[in-house]
């Protein structure tokens, strides 16, 4: 018999588990594009012990416009922070200038990397995700409250 929920436990505690589940898909580590291209079935292990498979077409697309050196620098999957921006916008984490180049190429416009992150507004995020489905991953972050913000 399944365990019934404790009626005396506050309901928001059940939902707090959602926060853990939400980021359970994050990769344990990253691999470079060059390494992934050499694998027959490219994947990275997630925190919940499931493998995250990369689409080979996507890897080839990225390799198409990156040099050998850049392929060895670009770590995949790239992480997109959701809810981390000051106004709740998404941010693409940039660990090297290669991410900036990839984002600029996919979006077809110059992008600026500030504090190791590129701000992505919703249409840009949709565009990026439509092309890089498996090579990007969402990270849900809780923004710290700004001074004077209502609790």
């Amino acid at each position: 018999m399944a365990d019934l929920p404790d009626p005396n436990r506050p309901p928001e505690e059940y939902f707090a588990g959602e926060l853990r589940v939400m980021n359970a898909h994050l990769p344990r580590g990253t691999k470079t594009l060059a390494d992934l291209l050499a694998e027959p079935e490219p994947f990275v292990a997630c925190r919940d012990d499931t493998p995250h498979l990369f689409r080979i077409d996507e890897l080839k697309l990225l390799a198409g416009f990156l040099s050998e050196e850049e392929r060895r620098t670009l770590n995949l999957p790239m992480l997109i922070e959701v809810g981390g921006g000051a106004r709740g916008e998404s941010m693409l984490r940039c660990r090297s200038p290669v991410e900036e180049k990839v984002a600029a190429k996919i979006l077809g416009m110059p992008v600026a990397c500030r504090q190791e992150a590129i701000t992505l507004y919703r249409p840009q995020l949709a565009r990026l995700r439509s092309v890089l489905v498996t090579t990007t991953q969402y990270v849900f972050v809780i923004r710290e409250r700004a001074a004077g913000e209502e609790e």
Partner: protein
Amino acid sequence: MPRLVKVRPTKIELIKLRRRLTLSKRIQKIVRDRLSILTMEFLRIAREIVEARQTLTDGMASAYGALSVAAGSHGYLALEKDLAGAGRDVGIATGLRNVAGVRMPSFELVDSGRTIQTLNLLETSSYLDQAAGEWEATLKAIVRLAELGRSLDVMGMEINRTKRIVNALEYMVIPELKATIKYLNMKFEERDREEKSRLKRVKVLLQQA
């Protein structure tokens, strides 16, 4: 009118309730963000399904056309004889892709290594090669559509689940906590007023004595 949370009317409970309200608001914010991301992904998959269906329909029309031409060129009996020995093992690599915490299936056609060249090249024409090539492309489209179809189902279920959480927080948990905090605050203010009036009354009684 939201229900009140059953707690003892003490200051400690009020502090606990405030903490619970803060936690609930944070969870609500992040779950809402996730819901909007899931909806965006759902729409992306839906758009891809429309494209994949169109590709499949076009591919099948073209493949059936090419097969008809090949059948016209060879004759049905000869075509069946040629194709009987030209089977191909098709493998599908399955796995998982994780999108915003949703495990979606991944199907990819695996090349078995046996190509269509197992056909007798002397007795067959290029029409058959073309038909085989077009069916191969169609098979890829079928697998892609299967992956997208299942992904859409899984994403839809997750959106429903997330929506229920958002609604529960928005319409049940947070209003109940707010109402209880308001009730406790009023109760403490009332207690303070009672205390003040009691002290005044005691003072008056002491002065009279």
